[in-house]
């Protein structure tokens, strides 16, 4: 340890003795690190958006149902707790947002066509925060309250039903006694959605209107809760579990939409592989640089050994040199990636290339996401794998015979 200052000084001086080579290598490392972080930020942005859209369409980070509901989503499997009681339990609790809703399969018919859809009876005020729809962008208007007797459907569905704002449609479903429950609604708004399948699969009516049509009093089939971040869902989950009847089924978003959860995991794996691949490309240059640096210094290393420096000190010196080289490259690479991602935070228009991507649920504007954890990962990968890559040249340097270096004249 006390050798550290000497070794570091030597390593630093040697590094800058051959500026050209060092600058080239530092540039390569910087660009490599930049590529690691920048590309990661772009793919994070894309996948995060897919996940966030998916999570908001669910909606919420935590959902509560009757245990039978997921197998058979009908009103017979509803949550038998009145809205009044739910309000008492959850209004005072510290959620970013919560809502109870009626969600059942239904058939919607216009005078020309019928479609199977999911009927959502909602409280538009309570659900605004979930963000699955931008109320203001609805063509016509969105629902105004729980008593709203109108219906809002997706643009695509409207096209299929050949209906439009102002026209009437009929919704049909079953009540708890398995009797037909139906009702006419006037279409007041058409919404758009980036989430595939959302526009033609969901229709919105006021919660009270749905309850009345389905004859379920003031009960609902689904409770949804929003926490601070979908990445940190546990606090919300714990709070819901603590305050609700144990016979109900409480699920985190990634348990409801398992494909979204696995997308997140796949993404983490991809980031790791991507960074390692770039490092491998860099490592050839790094090892080559170190081998050259050692080779042109055989006599100096021999001299140091002859004067009584231990082989382990030579090993340390080369490794420190490699670490310094990598650290300089990392510092520049980190700054570079921050500086290039920052101005793009407002989004990159990728509509030209995005047509194919929309199928996968990606939007046409890409918002890069720079995570500190990804930056740390890039730095850790470069330093730790760089350390491993330097071992062999450093080991070779430490094996030199001092006498050969000292006696060679010239």
């Amino acid at each position, binding site marked *: 340890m*006390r*050798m550290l200052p*000497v070794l570091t*000084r*030597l390593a630093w*001086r*040697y590094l800058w*003795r051959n500026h050209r080579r060092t600058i080239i290598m530092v540039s390569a490392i910087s660009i490599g690190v930049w590529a690691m972080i920048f590309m990661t930020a772009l793919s994070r942005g894309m996948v995060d958006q897919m996940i966030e859209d998916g999570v908001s369409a669910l909606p919420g980070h935590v959902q509560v149902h009757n245990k039978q509901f997921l197998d058979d989503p009908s009103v017979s499997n509803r949550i038998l707790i009145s809205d009044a009681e739910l309000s008492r339990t959850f209004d005072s609790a510290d959620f970013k947002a919560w809502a109870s809703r009626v969600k059942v399969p239904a058939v919607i018919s216009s005078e020309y066509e019928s479609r199977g859809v999911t009927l959502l009876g909602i409280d538009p005020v309570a659900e605004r925060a979930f963000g699955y729809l931008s109320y203001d962008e609805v063509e016509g208007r969105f629902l105004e309250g729980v008593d709203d007797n109108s219906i809002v459907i997706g643009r695509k569905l409207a096209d299929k039903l050949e209906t439009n704002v102002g026209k009437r449609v009929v919704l049909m479903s079953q009540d708890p006694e398995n009797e037909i429950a139906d009702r006419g609604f006037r279409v007041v708004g058409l919404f758009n959605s980036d989430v595939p399948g959302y526009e033609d699969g969901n229709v919105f009516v006021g919660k009270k209107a749905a309850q009345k049509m389905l004859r379920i009093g003031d009960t609902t089939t689904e409770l949804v809760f929003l926490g601070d971040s979908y990445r940190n869902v546990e606090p919300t989950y714990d709070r819901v579990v603590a305050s609700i009847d144990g016979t109900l089924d409480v699920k985190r978003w990634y348990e409801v939409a398992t494909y979204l959860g696995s997308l997140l995991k796949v993404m983490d794996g991809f980031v790791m592989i991507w960074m390692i691949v770039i490092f491998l490309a860099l490592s050839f240059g790094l090892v080559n640089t170190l081998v050259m640096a050692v080779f042109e210094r055989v*006599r*100096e290393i*021999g*001299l*140091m*050994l*002859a*004067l*009584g*420096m*231990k*082989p382990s*000190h030579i090993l340390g010196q080369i490794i420190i040199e490699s670490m310094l080289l990598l650290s300089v490259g990392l510092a520049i690479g980190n700054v570079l990636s921050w500086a290039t991602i920052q101005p793009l935070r407002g989004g990159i228009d990728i509509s030209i290339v995005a047509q194919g991507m929309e199928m996968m649920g990606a939007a046409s504007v890409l918002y890069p996401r720079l995570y500190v954890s990804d930056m740390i990962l890039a730095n850790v990968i470069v330093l730790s794998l760089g350390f491993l890559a330097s071992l062999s040249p450093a080991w070779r340097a430490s094996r030199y015979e*001092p*006498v050969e*270096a*000292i*006696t*060679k*004249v*010239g």
Partner: protein
Amino acid sequence: MAAVRCVDLCKTYRQGDQDIKALDHVSIEIEPGGFVCLSAPSGGGKTTLLNAIGGLDMPDSGEVWVADRRIDQLSKGALAELRLSSIGFVFQAYNLIPVLTARENIEFVMQVQGVPAAERAKKSMAILEEVGLKGLEDRRPAEMSGGQQQRVAVARAIVSRPALVLADEPTANLDSKTSDELMTLFTELNEHHNTTFVIATHDQRVMGYAKRLIRMLDGRIVDDIEQHAA
């Protein structure tokens, strides 16, 4: 006890299809406080002998003892330790670390030894003055003349007061006045600190300072005479 003892050292190099006996049954014993000059024509085996004594090169046969410790069987690490703690070197061909300044080169050995910074600074500045390089402490080797570099090497060899100094042509690049100053410095160290010196040289003037003169030829000792300092 002897500062250095060599028993029947042999070392053969192969050059092409010829065997060169660099050391041919060499035995010597040097007392602590000895001041020995090794003199031989070029190729006589001086450097080979110094390297064997310094544990830098292994003889093919024979024994090397330094301060009553047999060193020709020690591990690399132990040899490094021995060189660091008790031997000062001036090498014939290559001495200074090019990326370090004169002062840093002089402090290098002390730094590896773990001498505290303040003490290092004091000692290195003092020795720079003694070898006549005051003011040049921040120069790198490439910015100094051959003689100045040589003096930095000498300064490094003696700065931490090793018990044994092995110097291979220490005055090679020096004018007669500077050589005399260096030899006076060596003599003082030898007298005041009982430092043992083994100096390989061609230089008659240097031989004049030695208490004992060993002449070699083709790897053999041909003459070994005690003499009184000039």
